[in-house]
């Protein structure tokens, strides 16, 4: 794992990259959103104050998915009708990038996937619409209108200054999970599955008052 050190172009604080492929990060001190262009860091924005968050996960949390170790290096926060949720960006020890979503302590682990087809427009992926990816049958279950709330840490792409984002959730009968993410054009596909908190064997978790 390479670790590059640079300085925040805004406040001069040291910026450590845990992941060589990171495109974007945030300064922990001045909350500037920094995008890496070649060797330089450019400030593209600033993270507004994040909503109160009670995820047990934080940047630096480590865990296991199967036998692959990962570290949490970044996150995207969304608001929706029923609160907010976190998409934690994971860096696996083999260099792969994955996502652990924590929606009120329901955890899904997913990876970007090649849909192998043109994904439908957001409006036409109504609940019940069938999809087949990698030989697994999925059905659209819900379309969620989310509001981008903020970012933190290292991300595999530039992601800031978003507003409303549409997501379509997919489920299979075997318990697999997918999301079509309409924050980009063409939309992105993530495929994964619900994960058991215990099985992730997470370390460096947050602590909760009264729950030690």
């Amino acid at each position: 794992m390479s670790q590059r050190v640079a300085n925040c172009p805004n406040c001069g604080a040291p910026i450590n990259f845990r992941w060589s492929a990171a495109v974007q990060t945030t300064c922990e001190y001045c909350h500037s959103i920094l995008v890496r262009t070649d060797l330089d860091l450019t400030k593209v924005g600033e993270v507004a104050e994040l909503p109160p968050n009670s995820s047990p996960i934080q940047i630096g949390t480590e865990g296991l998915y199967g036998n692959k170790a990962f570290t949490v290096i970044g996150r995207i926060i969304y608001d929706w009708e029923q609160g907010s949720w976190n998409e934690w960006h994971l860096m696996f020890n083999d260099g792969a990038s994955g996502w652990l979503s924590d929606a009120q302590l329901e955890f899904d682990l997913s990876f970007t996937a090649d849909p192998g087809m043109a994904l439908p427009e957001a409006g036409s992926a109504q609940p019940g619409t069938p999809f087949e990816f990698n030989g697994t049958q999925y059905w659209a279950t819900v379309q969620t209108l989310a509001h981008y709330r903020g970012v933190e840490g290292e991300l595999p792409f530039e992601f800031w200054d978003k507003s409303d984002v549409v997501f379509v959730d997919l489920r299979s009968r075997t318990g697999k999970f997918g999301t079509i993410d309409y924050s980009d054009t063409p939309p992105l596909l993530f495929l994964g599955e619900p994960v058991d908190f215990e099985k992730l064997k997470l370390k460096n978790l947050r602590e909760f008052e009264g729950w030690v």
Partner: protein
Amino acid sequence: MGSPNIPLPTVKTRSLSCPNCGGTIQIRGFAHSLTAVCQNCLSVLDTSTPEVSIIQQIEAKLRRTPKVPLGSRGKLEGTTYEVIGFQTRGISVEGVLYEWDEYVIFNPYKGFLYITEYQGHWNIVRPVRALPQYQEGSKPKVIHDGRTYKHFQNATARTEFVLGEFPWRLKVGEEIKSDDYTSPPYVLSAETTADEVTWSLGEYVGGDLIWRTFQLKDKPPSPVGTYVNQPNPNAGKPSGAFRLLMLFLAGLLVLTAFFLVTARRENVFNERHHFAPADLGEKSFVTPIFELKGRTSNVVVETKTDAMNNWISLGYALINADTGTALNFAREISFYSDGSDTEGNRNDSTTIPSVPPGRYYLLVDPEGDAKLGSIEYDIIVRRDVPNVAFFLLAAFALLIPPLVIVWRTYHFEQVRWRESDYSSGSSSSGDDD
């Protein structure tokens, strides 16, 4: 390698001041709680933003007391959960309101579980992430995780009362369409909103488990009636009973075969007698002594007569020559014929069970009608004659317990389904189980 990030501080619990009455509201679900109810004045509050706002004021007369108090903690499957929310929901069926309670329980790492209670019937409910598969039919089914669930009831559940906190927006009066599918001890429920169908899986548990888990005082209320996913106490018993029946029948068959094969079927005595009812003097007589050998077994006494439009009554006593023990029995033999129709039987056979071996004789006391003619008859005594009727009788007796169990099992299901959309009173067809 140093960790460059600043670890986040411990997540603090917070308390709010009720914007209505100023009372203190302890928030147990951290930032997950979107709705909280003031225990003091029953204001429903939106806690999703720092500026707490009042959504609703619940009438005091609607107040209910949760059987499991808010703030109770207990361990379920190794994880400590705290009771943070309580709601009473109800459905109206033909003008009758049926209410049940739901508890939200929380662990800051493991998330949310739910406990429901209806008239002493408890369920622990978990969210379902896989998509159950519908099977249409006169009685729809769903398949989930290899298990088939039968549709039980469709209803619109209305929230009648709320207390504590919820990780979603909620208020009194909210209605959700719900469908229950049962496969005891599980119930799979689908809640349908305009946007989405949400599935959850309930598992039936005894009230004592809830009482133990949360260390509650006294005893849980006794369950009333039969619940949608209450395990049938006789589940699996009918097949078990029939397996046992098969075992017994096989044993009986072996035993019968053994007796059939090893039976002596021995002719021990055979003597002809003449009886003239008109004769004067003592008619009774004793036979010579004969020996009954082998194990204790039956003795068959046959009487073969030449009676024609006549009858004879024979008082018998089988007497042990050494001990004097007597077994008394009487036989009536009559036979009438008018050429085409006949009535009665010239021959008679009777079986005396369990006669120990030994030396015996018969005391015979014939009686008849002096106005009728005389009768010739043979007395035949046979030892250890197998009887298949005993096998049939025993087999029938063995059949009774499994039949009782089948009936009980069936009756339990009858009572369960009486509460469903498929009770015999409704238009749909009955249980096809």
